[in-house]
């Protein structure tokens, strides 16, 4: 499934009634089976872009569509949230089944599909736990399992690991890469972490500060599957330096505000 974002702008009205331009003329194509990271300083509208693709917001200008075949019983998109956004009143299993419930999947089939994703994300044995009983890393595993359970053609991830501690984040990145190798989903991955973007993605789309525009698209010339040792390779270092030079001034500006 391909994601096409064509000349998309998003305008907000602030409290004083002024119009704020969060995104300005974004053009972006994410190919099938491609892992694209959208990176930018805080306030660049990268989460807004993801919400637009998810259909949780409407663009003010431009159009967004998905291009490809969608087999029945599968969702077009699914989202993984920075703050996990698990339902506290649902057990792990019931959280993972949520999207399937809304799709009208029968109970037995729901349980089967949820169980499969729970096994795949290392959550076996935690089915009856409530989210508050889990660590941050385990909670986000539930978030990922919930998203994968609906069999999405496109996986949208909004800074999924930025609320985790550094060690957990590293491990979760590797798990996500393994999941991607296995499923080859189209992934749009929003982050503000340059290393993370380069380590995970095929291509990094760099956004400017508000109004968010595409500053550059940086292709990551690293082989798959990715390995931790690659962070020392020239291709990795170059990509990181290139991106940092692009957004350094913008980040400094944001700091002064």
């Amino acid at each position, binding site marked *: 499934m391909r994601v096409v974002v064509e000349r998309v702008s998003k305008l907000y009205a602030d409290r004083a009634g002024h119009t704020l331009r969060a995104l300005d003329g974004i053009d972006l194509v994410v190919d099938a089976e491609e892992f694209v990271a959208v990176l930018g300083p805080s306030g660049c509208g990268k989460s807004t872009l993801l919400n637009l693709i998810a259909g949780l917001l409407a663009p003010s200008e431009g159009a967004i569509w998905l291009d490809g075949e969608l087999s029945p019983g599968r*969702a077009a*998109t699914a*989202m993984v949230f920075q703050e996990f*956004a698990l*339902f506290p009143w*649902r057990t792990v299993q019931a959280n993972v089944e949520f999207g399937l419930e*809304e799709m009208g999947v029968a109970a037995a089939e729901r349980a089967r599909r949820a169980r499969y994703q729970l096994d795949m994300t290392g959550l076996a044995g935690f089915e009856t736990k409530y*989210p508050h*009983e889990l660590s941050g890393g385990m909670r986000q595993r539930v978030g990922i399992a919930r998203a994968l359970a609906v069999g999405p053609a496109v996986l949208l991830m909004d800074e999924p690991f930025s609320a985790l501690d550094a060690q957990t984040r590293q491990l979760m990145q590797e798990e996500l890469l393994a999941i991607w190798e296995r499923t080859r989903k189209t992934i749009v991955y929003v982050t503000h972490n340059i290393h993370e973007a380069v380590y995970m993605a095929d291509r990094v789309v760099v956004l400017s500060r508000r109004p968010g525009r595409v500053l550059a698209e940086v292709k990551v010339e690293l082989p798959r599957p990715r390995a931790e040792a690659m962070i020392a390779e020239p291709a990795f270092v170059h990509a990181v330096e290139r991106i940092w030079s692009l957004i350094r001034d913008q980040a400094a500006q944001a700091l002064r505000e």
Partner: protein
Amino acid sequence: MRIAVVNRAAFLTRPEYRGLRVVAVLGLVIAWEALARTGRVPVLFLPSPLGVLAEGWEMLRSGELLGHLTASLQRLVLGFALGGAAGVVVGVAVGFFAAAEAVGTPLLAATFPIPKIALLPLLILWLGLGEPSKVAVIALGVFFPMAINTFTGVRQADPLLMRAAVAFGARRWSVIRKVILPSALPMIFAGLRLGAGTALLLLVAAEMIAVESGIGFLVLHAGNLMQTTKLMVGIVVLSLLGVLSHWGLGWLERLAIPWRASS
């Protein structure tokens, strides 16, 4: 130089005086009993706790107490259920739908401050002297705290969770049922507790007018006949009703909100 480091925040930790709780209750009863036994206060004004207990047992055996209790509980449960259900429905509607909020908020704000007892004569006029007016006044008393608490609970529902639900295909009704209602449940239970207090108050008030049964009638009637011990039995039963409803709601809350109880 050696500077001793001690826990300066020790006084901030509050010890739990469990024993003292029991002593407080027992102390009151014993003091009361002792005062009654001195004979300085006539039984007409202050019957002894043991006397009240004996009278209560006698009334229980004769079936008198049970008759009053059943009549009261029927009114209480019916009024509570009607007012509670209406309160939740109105609270969700006003909290979720903008049009319902525009209509509901000023109406609730205008009617909420009316002391519900003042409406009793009006309700009797409309519904007659029988059961409906009694149930109605209790339902009204429960309705307002339930509607307002449900409204607040609905408003406190996390927008992120609503968006997450929508991201996974939930439509309006699913969001209400699967996100907003469970989010509002703790506030709904707080409303039930508030409602229980109001309901008891209105029950007694309603049973003091034109009825022949109920704990409120028992208290008023015994007072008129200067049967102070019987009156006290009524008051003790009422306070037991209050305590039991508090416990019962707490138990129900732990059952209905398991994701909180185990934290």
